[in-house]
Structures are given as C-alpha cells and as structure tokens.
C-alpha cells in the first residue's frame, strides 16, 4: 500500500489589516497564490500593483514555486502594493550596452539620419543584455522598420524566451518624444520604456541628455527626470 504524504499547508494572508487563511501546495507558483489572495479579498482596485511580502520586509518573488520561495506553514504574508508590473520594473543594463548602442546608432545614421535599436533581455527578468538593430529605412526626419524583419524578430524572441525591454532611437536635434513616437511604440504595454538620443547620437555615449519615458496606463507617455529612474547598471 502506498502512502501519500499530505503536502498542503495553510498560510495567513493579511490585507487591509484583515487576516485570512489560504491553503497552498509546495509546487504551486507564487503567482498563483497571489491571484488566489487577490480573489479571496475580492480586490478590484489595481490588483496588478499588489505583491506578497514576508515579515522581514522582502517581497516574495512570483516566478518561483512556494517551496522554492521558502514559504513555511503558518507564515504570515502581507498583501500590499509594490510596484508597477507588466514590464516596468527598473531595468538592469549589462556592461557595454550603452556604448555599443551609441556606436550602432552613429554608424548607421552617419550624423544625418535617424536610427533605431531595441534592447532585449530574458522575458522573466528585468535585465537588458542584448541589442537588436532592425532593418529599416531612414531619413533625417524618421525611420521605418521593415515588416518582414519585425515578424522574424518576434519569432526569434518567442523561441528564445526573450522580450523587448526598451526602444531607443535618435533625433537630429534635441531629444523629445514626437507624436509618431507616442503613437507607434514597438510594444504597447504599460511601463514600456522609450529612449530618444539627441543629435543622431553624436555626443558622449551616455543617457544624461536623452529623453527617457514610459507608457502609462492611460496610454500617455510620462517623461522621467532622469534615466536612472528606468535603468541602472547591472
């Protein structure tokens, strides 16, 4: 006769000061627990901003199992807002990304045409570790990415479980987000970051003079006061 060990256990969830028990299984994903918690409390106000926190103040990572996250029976988990999810976590830039991007934009634009690049990274992480330079038409006033290249690019990303983290392009004069930039980002997801480099990227390879912003829930772009509010060195 085989014996099946009972692996389910109960954790205590706290929201708005009220505690409710919830049964979980070690193999269950934390993201599933989070969704259950949101359902148990009937939260409809911006549930995507909520995360689970341990009593030591650390956030419980959602892409792990309950067992791997170290959640113990009877543990008290606080459900509270953390951050914008859906891709707008602070991005960590692998070494060399900024200078390589500037070199690419400069060599392609030759000081007279706009150029674009995409920063990519593992889909499950807020890490930028790759640059894609699309096939595109170019002029001093804009660029247009080749449709076939774009289709193939999406296929490659899906196959390698990677995603586009940031779109980056140059302008002839000062950096700003034009109406076309506003309307046609490569990714229309809340939190997606766009960077515009002034003077065809002829200056120092730095984001200090760049326009940096992200897409808000209302579909408008919000400019950040500094690039470090979106990206930091890894």
């Amino acid at each position, binding site marked *: 006769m085989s014996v099946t060990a009972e692996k389910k256990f109960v954790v205590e969830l*706290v929201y*708005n*000061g*009220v*505690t409710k028990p919830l049964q979980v299984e070690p193999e269950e994903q934390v993201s599933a627990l989070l969704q259950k918690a949101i359902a148990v409390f*009937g939260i*409809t*106000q*911006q549930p995507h*901003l909520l995360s689970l*926190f*341990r*009593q*030591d*103040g*650390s*956030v419980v990572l959602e892409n792990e199992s309950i067992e791997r996250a170290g959640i113990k029976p009877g543990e*008290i988990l*606080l459900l*509270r*807002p*953390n*951050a*914008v999810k859906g891709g*707008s*976590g*602070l991005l*960590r830039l692998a070494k060399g990304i900024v200078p390589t991007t500037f070199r690419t934009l400069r060599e392609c634009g030759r000081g007279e045409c706009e150029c674009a690049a995409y920063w990519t990274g593992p889909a499950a992480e*807020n890490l930028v570790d790759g640059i894609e330079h699309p096939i595109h038409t170019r002029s001093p006033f804009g660029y247009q990415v080749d449709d076939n290249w774009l289709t193939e690019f999406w296929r490659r990303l899906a196959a390698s479980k990677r995603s586009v983290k940031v779109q980056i392009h140059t302008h002839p004069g000062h950096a700003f987000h034009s109406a076309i930039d506003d309307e046609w980002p490569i990714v229309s997801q*809340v*939190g997606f970051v766009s960077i515009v480099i002034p003077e065809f990227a002829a200056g120092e390879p730095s984001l200090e003079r760049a326009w940096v912003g*992200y897409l*808000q*829930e*209302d579909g408008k772009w*919000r400019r*950040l*006061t*500094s690039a*470090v*509010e979106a990206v*930091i060195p890894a």
Partner: protein
Amino acid sequence: MAAPDICSRSRYSSMTALEELNRTTLLCRDYVAEGLSDIEIGHSFRSLRVLCVSDLQNLSSHSGQTALVTLVSLLSRMGIQVGLAVPDVAMLFPQPPLSGSSLRSALIASSEIFVTGATVRCDSDCNPDLIFVLGDSKIDTGQANSWRLSGSDWYGALKMEESVKTKAWTAEWPIGSMVSAAMAANEAFKFVMRRLPLRDPADSIFFEPSPSCSWNFGSLPIRSQDVDLGEVDLISAGAISQAALYALMRLPKVFMWGRIFDDDVTGRSNLNRNMLTLVSDVGLKKVLVVAQRCGTKLRLEPVPNRFTHRPSNPRTLAPRVLVGVDDIPSRWQVQRSAPGWLAVGGTSHFSVSSSAHLPDEPCCGCLHPVDDPAGANPIPTVSFVSFWAGLAMAVRLVREALAIPYSRNQQHLWLTPLRMDLPHAGMWSPVASRQDCPVPCFSSTASCSKR
C-alpha cells in the same frame, strides 16, 4: 444639533462641499456599489451627527484638549456634523490652526472652516448617531453608539462604552491622544460606510466596528528640558507633512527649524486631509500656509518650488529630512540628496507606509523601488489615513532626535487603520536591501558587491 439644511443653502455651497470631499468620495468608491452618485456618498457623511463629550477634568490636560481638537478636526474634514458637550476651559497650549484662548469657543469658531458645511456646535441635545467620550467623563448610557478615548503619552485606545472602565486624560505629551482621536475618526468613517451599499457584501469585514482597539508608538521617558529637533527639511507641504507638523506643534518644549519645499497651491480637494489648512487658504501657496501656521515653534522657511536633485551638488538637504511627497521618483531624488536621516510617509488607499532611513541602511528606493503610474491620478484619501502617516513620521523624528530610534526590525510600518482591533492592523518590518535599488543606495551596492 440641527442637521444642515442643505436645501436652504445655495447650490454653490453644496457643490463646493462635494468638491472638498472629492478624495474621500473617491476612496469610498473602492468598496461602495456602482451607481451611487458623489452626491449620495457625500450626503452620507454630511448627514452624520457626532457628539463629543468631556468633563472638566479630562479637558484639564494638554493631552485631553488635543484629543478633542484632533477628533473634531478629523471628523469635520470628512464633512461630518459635530456637536460638543464640553465645558469651556482655557487652552493650555496653542492648537493651530485654531486660534483663541478658550478651547470651546475656538472649536465652535472652527465650524465650516475646515470643510464647507461641516458644522461644529455646542449642542448636547442633538440626537447623535455616534458619541465619543473623553477618558472617564460621565454620559447617559443607552443613547447612540458610543466609544471612549483614553491613553497616555505615547499610547492611545478606543473602547466601546459598555466594555470598559477608563482613566481620565492626564498625560503631558499628546501622541497617545492623537492616536485615539484618529481611531475614533475611523469609527465614524466606518459607520458611514456601513450605511452605504457595498459592491461586494464580503467587504463589510473591513468596516465592522472595533469594540476595543489601541496603538502604542512605544513609550519613551518625557524630558523636562527642551527637545531640539535641529535643522529639518520637509519635502512637500501636503497632507502628510501637514499632519506631521500638526503633531510636532503639539509636543511641549519641542523646537526645530528648516525649510519646506512645495510648488503647489492649496486646492479645495486638499481640505479633506490637510490638517493645517482652512477653507480660506484655497488658492494660497501651500508652503506659505504651513510656514505661517507653524510660527516660531517650528521655524520653517517656505520654498515655493519643487525640490530638485542636482548631481553636481548632491548633498544639499538638512541632516534630517521628512518626505511626504506622493511621487515615487521624487522620493528617490530626495534620498540621493539627503546627507543624513530621512523619513518617508505615504498612503495607499486605506493603508499607511512609514519608514526611516539612515545612510547605511536600505533606503526609500529599496522600499519603493518602482514608480506607480496611478500616482499621477487624483489620489483617494481620507483625513484619518493621511493623519496616521504624518503622526508616525513625527514620532520617528522625535525618536531620532532623542537618539532612541526604532530598531531595524521597525524600519518600516505598514498600517491599515480600518480594523485596529485586529492583530495585523499594523505590521512592522525591516526594509530589505534591493539589488535593483533605483537610488542606488550604499546598502544596495554593498549587497551587490557581496554576491
């Protein structure tokens, strides 16, 4: 106490009150049924009658007086009608933004100065919906729902009438009295919510009355000599900063000086929570209003601009900084510019976040690592939630100045004051250092280099 005759008032006045209660209404919409109009929600608050009762003994201490003033202010800022059954006593310490030397007269003069239509009257025969009683003051039992406010220097409690025997207010320091007033205001808010239909009946758990609740910020010995908080800069002259200053101004023998930064002008929608602001201040720069109300006890230079971090001159702030600004990237900027101790107070719907950060500790970027795009929208708030955030920040500042700060395990407080009778209403925790800290702070870079 007569109910306000809304019909006889001008339509303009009624609409003004709705505008002033706009953020409170917005917060109620987290839970009330779809289809309720702002007028219906606003009317539920404006039609509530609350009686505040005290005898002479309980108003003979600064803590008792502060409990009453704070409670009346928090109730009025929800649009509630307040009746007073209190003796007239001399004000022991100033109670800004009230003025005058007589406590009862000053409170009656506060009628409609916090929120349009929120009256304060001397009227014990008013058929109240709720009664709040200070300390051991006697009342006729069996009238309405009643609670007693009690406490000490740092501890506040609220108990339903039938459940207790309480002591008179005698404390010299009024932190506990402001705690009990905030808990009482919460009960009035929940009473209104219980009269409104909810979207999901299961949510009624958040608005059940608390038969008995208390909160202790941690007792410290009260010093007989002056407490100099030193040079302190405040970032924002909004609700949380105003609540902190409101609390600090009521602490005997406590002084400070510094600057207050904010480029905003007082709007009607600020009146529901800005504790130092009056209806007559609408249109005035917030920093000017606050600096004037703080007087010489807390000498603040008004700076009518946003604080800007300058990378070329990064350490431009005072050794102690209070941050009450909602915008998360602005908090990061301030953290980068802060040379020493920094405290942050914030609210999110019904919850309060309070933290303090020394240069070698995980910073406010570790605690609030990502911007909240909803922060740009009108923020749903109510008087007592913002007040808790400011009060907690004021306590942190005093403890820091007394060199008795909270331990690392209490670096962050997440407090939801709806059900203060439940064990997890307030949760203290350390702040965990984050590798992706947006500031980035010393603690986060040190933890990275260790990996």
